[in-house]
């Protein structure tokens, strides 16, 4: 199987899925599961392939080609895995979807598109598939809760993608080739061109990752997309931005080309600027996530924050931090995918994702709870889940370079993540079970599969992060960096090491000790959750007795409630519209005399400067 035929198959089968879904809703949805599994399987076979070239089609005078590489495989496998796991939810949502056939088709198209992005040999192919991913995901979002957010998504996304397009053609104009390899070689002679291209091209990555100040679309779109697509958006498609950043800064080796530039804390100032943006988005994402009432919005803001970690890691371009950033791509895909999926499961059963309307669901949906718990432990970067490995590497990378302001943001985001990940746990799963949800059941077995697999992967790679890091070190070597050092389960950085297996064993031992202590003590008597200390007062209504609204009100008071970036973008949009209205009144007025005036003005101006001809 080759990449080009895989993509052709994907495009054709997306049409097939559309027709099948028209015939039978469930059948089409099952086909998406089947095909995404097949795609995952085939992509998996490319694990060790690098440098194989496949040609897709001639596009006018250009040729679209694919090339396998280690970094492409890594991203592709993360994405297809996310798509595959999420697709298990599809069959159950067909009844609730407004346009299931289109949903399934676009789901497939965007999945195939991501593979195309990662395996692109040249920038044109990359851009084509990037845009395919954008518009195919774009049309899924309005099937959810909002008709405005896809427009915001498209606006910010197109700012990024068109900036990239501009950079691509600027490169083509100056280098004469779209080929990434050729460009990367040519750039080493032309740091000035590269500096411009770096900033214009990375905007695409930043917008897709949701880095400040382009983060506004992300919570809006992820929070209001259909429940089954939010995990793909957050766990998967955001990583496409990471890939663009990787291409811009690492595959085209910024650390070599810009070595002559001003170096800030060990990296070129260009990279440092992007890292600062990442740091700001960590802080903004964290602060905003803390105060969301809707669980999906909360997870979406946490994505903003975690994208900051990814971009910081990637921009470090060193042995340790880069590996951390790359590994965070996987960790965040699994963690945020699982978080979104568990809330999709809740929404499937209860019909809401508002935390204040939920509560106590652990008794009804224990498996969903377990998946969510494991995901948040990983997202908060607590051992022994896989999230700790990547955060540890990023911290070490920052520490060895002494980037204290970025470290400040990273630490703040890391501790702040305890706050926001805990809130849905507390408000939706723990606490009092609302009488409304007394008869809620665990989700069907097919929806449990992805939750179980994601949890398993999170734990497995938490205990053996070396498995992923070994592959990442291959990637690092292929782009000219020093590979991250691993010894068995020990992960070694210049500034220290840790052993994931030992931590797990010690934690397990501690837990066993505590359990022994627990079980030799007198047995506890189970009581109802309403039987709690209430100063002797009698409580009858679990809904009123559930602490879920304004959870961190006291903390939020410290930083207020102004969405300044959103307001700024709104203001810009308003100005554009006002300008349009002005054009309408000035050039398309009711009276003809206006246009006579303009025509006269045109002639006057031309004749003023006419003598210069």
């Amino acid at each position, binding site marked *: 199987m080759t990449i080009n035929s895989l993509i052709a198959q994907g495009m054709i089968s997306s049409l097939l899925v559309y027709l099948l879904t028209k015939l039978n809703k469930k059948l089409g949805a099952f086909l998406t599961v089947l095909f995404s599994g097949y795609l995952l399987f085939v992509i998996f076979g490319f694990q060790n392939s690098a440098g194989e070239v496949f040609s897709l089609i001639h596009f006018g005078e250009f040729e679209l080609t694919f090339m396998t590489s280690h970094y492409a495989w890594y991203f592709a496998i993360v994405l297809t895995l996310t798509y595959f796991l999420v697709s298990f939810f599809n069959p159950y949502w067909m009844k609730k979807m407004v346009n299931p056939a289109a949903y399934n088709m676009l789901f497939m198209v965007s999945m195939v598109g991501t593979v195309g992005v990662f395996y692109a040999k040249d920038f044109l192919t990359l851009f084509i598939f990037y845009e395919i991913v954008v518009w195919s995901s774009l049309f899924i979002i309005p099937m959810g809760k909002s008709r405005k957010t896809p427009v915001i998504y498209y606006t910010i996304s197109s700012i990024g993608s068109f900036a990239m397009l501009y950079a691509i053609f600027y490169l083509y104009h100056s280098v004469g080739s779209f080929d990434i390899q050729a460009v990367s070689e040519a750039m080493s002679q032309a740091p000035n061109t590269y500096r411009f291209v770096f900033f214009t091209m990375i905007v695409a990555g930043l917008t897709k990752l949701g880095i400040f100040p382009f983060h506004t679309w992300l919570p809006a779109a992820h929070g209001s997309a259909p429940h089954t697509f939010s995990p793909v958006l957050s766990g998967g498609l955001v990583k496409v931005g990471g890939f663009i950043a990787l291409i811009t800064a690492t595959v085209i080796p910024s650390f070599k080309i810009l070595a002559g530039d001003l170096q800030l804390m060990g990296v070129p100032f260009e990279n440092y600027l992007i890292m600062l943006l990442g740091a700001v988005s960590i802080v903004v994402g964290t602060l905003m996530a803390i105060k969301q009432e809707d669980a999906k919005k909360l997870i979406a803001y946490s994505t903003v924050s975690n994208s900051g970690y990814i971009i910081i890691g990637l921009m470090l371009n060193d042995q340790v931090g880069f590996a951390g950033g790359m590994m965070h791509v996987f960790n965040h895909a699994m963690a945020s995918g699982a978080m979104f999926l568990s809330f999709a499961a809740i929404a499937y059963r209860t019909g809401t994702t508002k935390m204040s309307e939920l509560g106590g669901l652990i008794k009804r949906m224990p498996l969903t709870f377990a998946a969510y718990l494991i995901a948040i432990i990983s997202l908060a970067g607590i051992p022994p889940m896989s999230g700790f490995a990547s955060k540890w590497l990023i911290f070490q990378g920052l520490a060895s370079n002494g980037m204290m302001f970025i470290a400040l943001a990273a630490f703040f985001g890391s501790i702040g993540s305890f706050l926001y990940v805990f809130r849905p746990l507390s408000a939706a799963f723990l606490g009092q079970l609302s009488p409304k949800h007394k008869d809620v059941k665990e989700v069907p077995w097919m929806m449990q599969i992805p939750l179980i697999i994601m949890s398993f992967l999170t734990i497995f790679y938490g205990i053996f992060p070396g498995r992923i890091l070994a592959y990442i070190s291959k990637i690092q070597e292929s782009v000219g960096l020093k590979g991250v050092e691993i010894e068995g389960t020990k992960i070694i950085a210049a500034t220290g090491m840790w052993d994931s297996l030992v931590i797990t064993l010690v934690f397990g031992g501690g837990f066993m000790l505590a359990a022994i202590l627990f079980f030799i003590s007198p047995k506890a008597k189970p009581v109802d959750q309403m039987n709690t200390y209430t100063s*002797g007062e009698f409580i009858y*209504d679990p809904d009123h007795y559930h602490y879920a609204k304004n959870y961190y009100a006291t903390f939020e008071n410290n930083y207020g409630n102004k969405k300044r970036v959103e307001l700024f973008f709104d203001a810009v949009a308003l100005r554009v519209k006002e300008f349009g209205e002005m054009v309408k009144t000035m050039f398309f007025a009711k009276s003809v005399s206006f246009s006579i005036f303009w025509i006269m003005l045109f002639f006057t101006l031309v004749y003023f400067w006419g003598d210069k001809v």
Partner: protein
Amino acid sequence: MAMNNDFNEINLNDGDLNDTITFWDKLKNVFRGNSLWMLHYCTGCGAVELPPTMTSRFDMERIGMGPMATPRQADVLLITGYLSVKTLRRVIYTYEQMMEPKYVVGFGSCTLNGGIYYDSYATINKLDYYLPVDLYIAGCMPRPEAVMNGFKKLMDMIKKGEATGWKKYQRHYEDYYSPNQIRSLGEVYVKDEFHE
């Protein structure tokens, strides 16, 4: 309002309630006797005697006692004064939320016989009908010295295994405490959170 003669009298001290039998029991009682955490249910004027008992003047902590915020953590329920029917319900609820072994100390004459409120329509006279009181501290009000003395006595009782009110409550709940409680409280109709 139930009068005293409405209550059926039964022998509450039947059987052997002393739990200091084995070595482990004795050891446990040593710990329990040396660390008494107290939940004070301050209904009447008696509460004013507790701050000097806790703080520098008499320093309750030196014998291993301390105030606790919730019944789950506490060992002793200290009832410092008269109980109206409405507060009795709360006291019983609070008592039932405590962890066994748990002890009740009646504080002042109100808990013994109603004190100066003995003929009020709204107060109960004898706490022992409703909760198994291990120790009464008589007086109106008892001085902090008396309080300390009472606690010391309670500790001795615990170490000897004589403070067995909680076992009485378990054993005679059905035939004694529960009927007494219901008789006094009547049936409660629940309207909403704040109205019964």
